[in-house]
């Protein structure tokens, strides 16, 4: 449909036109390819600044991570080892809080929540501003269809974001894993959960899709920017609340005393068993005193045991993958809605 039929075209300046005619003879695939490349190049040209900023941010954060890993750690690690050798408690306190751990957590938070910036970019600059200024119409009045325009507007940033985010996730993963004993918060922390796995990338792509959809809905840059950031933030909040249920939990019970989850586990719930039923409201330390007193107290309350429900660290990958799937599904839905909306707004070729 899109490639021009040379017979219908008015004859342009002779030489140029002839070249085109011979090329048209080779088939439409080549013309399609050139259109796709031309459209992608246009998107790169329009969002040059954003691309430079993103590249600089990725390089800067990665450089910082590598530096943290190489230099700053050595001293602290020695300090930590000395502390451990001396048999002191809480060695991560003086070491971790103000050094390696703090910076690492800071970068981790930046990586985990960079999708909010992506949502702002997608809603505001990428689509919202174009619809507000009418430059989107300028593009649609050229030889490309609005659907193709949207495809390029999604695909080019998606590629750049995927490449950059993947690099950040891999480097962070490596640096975080190298000195886990120096980090303060564990694998479930806000700084380390998304910044080390595929879910972090899924949020970035989802922010892009949601931003594009809100911009198409609102058609103005600033409201689209605000709504898109709010919507992706809300999505992340809701998903984080449900995160624990993305994979079956492990429950440990004991008849004797309160159970501690294993080291590095993500504890979701703990409590007592009252006649075998889980009661999270009652603390395992409700009864104290001498052993006999405690026993009597427990019997009075009908407490037959203790339990704790948790995710061991080995659940990191299944939890990550399920969350990735959920977030990517939202991204796919938003993308489909964006294309449908654009199709509804602009004239599309009849199937005839």
């Amino acid at each position, binding site marked *: *449909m*899109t*490639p*021009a039929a040379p*017979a*219908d*075209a*008015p*004859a*342009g*300046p002779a030489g*140029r036109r002839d070249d*085109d005619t011979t*090329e*048209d003879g080779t088939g439409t695939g080549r*013309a399609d390819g*050139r*259109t796709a*490349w*031309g*459209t992608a*190049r*246009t998107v790169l*040209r*329009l969002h*040059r*600044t954003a691309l430079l900023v993103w590249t600089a941010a990725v390089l800067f954060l990665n450089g910082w991570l590598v530096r943290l890993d190489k230099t700053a750690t050595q001293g602290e690690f020695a300090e930590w080892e000395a502390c451990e050798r001396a048999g002191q408690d809480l060695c991560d306190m003086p070491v971790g809080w103000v050094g390696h751990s703090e910076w690492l957590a800071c970068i981790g938070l930046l990586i985990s929540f960079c999708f909010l910036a992506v949502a702002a970019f997608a809603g505001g600059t990428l689509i919202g501003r174009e619809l507000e*200024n*009418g*430059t989107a*119409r*300028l*593009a*649609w*009045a*050229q*030889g*490309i*269809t609005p659907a193709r325009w949207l495809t390029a507007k999604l695909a080019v940033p998606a590629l750049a974001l995927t490449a950059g985010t993947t690099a950040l996730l891999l480097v962070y993963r490596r640096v975080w894993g190298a000195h886990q004993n120096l980090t303060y918060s564990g694998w479930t922390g806000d700084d380390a959960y998304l910044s080390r796995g595929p879910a972090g990338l899924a949020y970035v792509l989802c922010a892009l899709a949601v931003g594009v959809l809100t911009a198409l809905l609102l058609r103005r840059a600033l409201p689209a920017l605000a709504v898109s950031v709010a919507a992706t933030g809300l999505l992340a909040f809701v998903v984080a609340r449900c995160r624990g249920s993305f994979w079956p939990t492990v429950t440990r019970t004991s008849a004797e005393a309160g159970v501690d989850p294993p080291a590095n586990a993500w504890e979701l719930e703990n409590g007592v068993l009252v006649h075998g039923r889980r009661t999270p409201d009652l603390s395992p330390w409700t009864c104290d005193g001498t052993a006999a007193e405690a026993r009597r107290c427990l019997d009075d309350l009908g407490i037959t045991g203790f339990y704790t429900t948790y995710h061991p660290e080995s659940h990191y990958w299944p939890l990550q993958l399920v969350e990735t799937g959920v977030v990517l599904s939202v991204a796919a839905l938003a993308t489909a809605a964006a294309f449908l909306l654009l199709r*509804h*707004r*602009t*004239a*599309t*070729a*009849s199937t005839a």
Partner: protein
Amino acid sequence: MTDTAMAATALGKRFGRRGGWALRDCAFRLPAGRVCAVVGPNGAGKSTLLALAAGLLAPTEGGVTVLGTDPASARARVGYVAQDKPLYPQLTVAETLRVGADLNPDRWDAETAGRIVSAGELDPKKKIRSLSGGQRTRVALALALGKRPELLLLDEPMADLDPLARHELMGTLMARAAQYGTTIVMSSHVVAELEDSCDHLLLVGGGRIRLAGEIDDLLGAHARVSTAVSTTAGAAGPAPATGGAPGGPPDLAPHTVVESRVTGRQLTALVRPAGPLAEDWRASTPSLEELVLAYLRNPQAAPLTPAEPEEAAV
């Protein structure tokens, strides 16, 4: 392939589900190779009509065909310049033209586009955001003409241009139309701007097509008549001297009256003659401006859109 550049049947566009109709029940046919003026007051629906033809909006009802197909399929062969001349402010003039080349890979005519820009003595390295309104118009026109359109849709193209640039760019457009048979549709609310260059007219008012056809035919179908009030009012003694009194309206039937006005003892009217005019009437051909103004002042006047779109199918 087809001799119809643009045709509409029962075309209507409403913005929002509860919004008013920007355009309703439009039917017309524009033969290929014409330079067509779309005239009408502000908010009449001119821009909506052009955007529908360019495939930038989907019609609410009815349809429009462009170059023998639907607007979406004709997109590559249609040039469009929107009223506010949107361009990417962060690009330079040269980069804007490169965008045109990238988005029209099989049709781009860099030479024409470059010539239009350089005629305005524009520095290609200048950013679009630093250009004046007229310079932006020039770049927007270069972008539209660079894709070698068969149909060029221009929404208020000359509004920002100084007289010199207006003359020069109008000349470029007309040369293009003459050389390649490009159909040009341009909207304006300044009729005088279009009178010399256009041969076809679409008068849009209140979201409907009021007049459609070749300008010569439309002018020929109307007559400006003037006559003394007393003679046509019948032999009722001395006619009332006060003009406009309903007591003695001259009988203009069976002609279709577009507008009539009594000044003193003189009645002037713009009519569509349905037969020979009375002998004691002084009749003359109206100017395009008179015709357009008469229709715009009298929204109740019967529209004249002779070309039925069914002809387009043949």
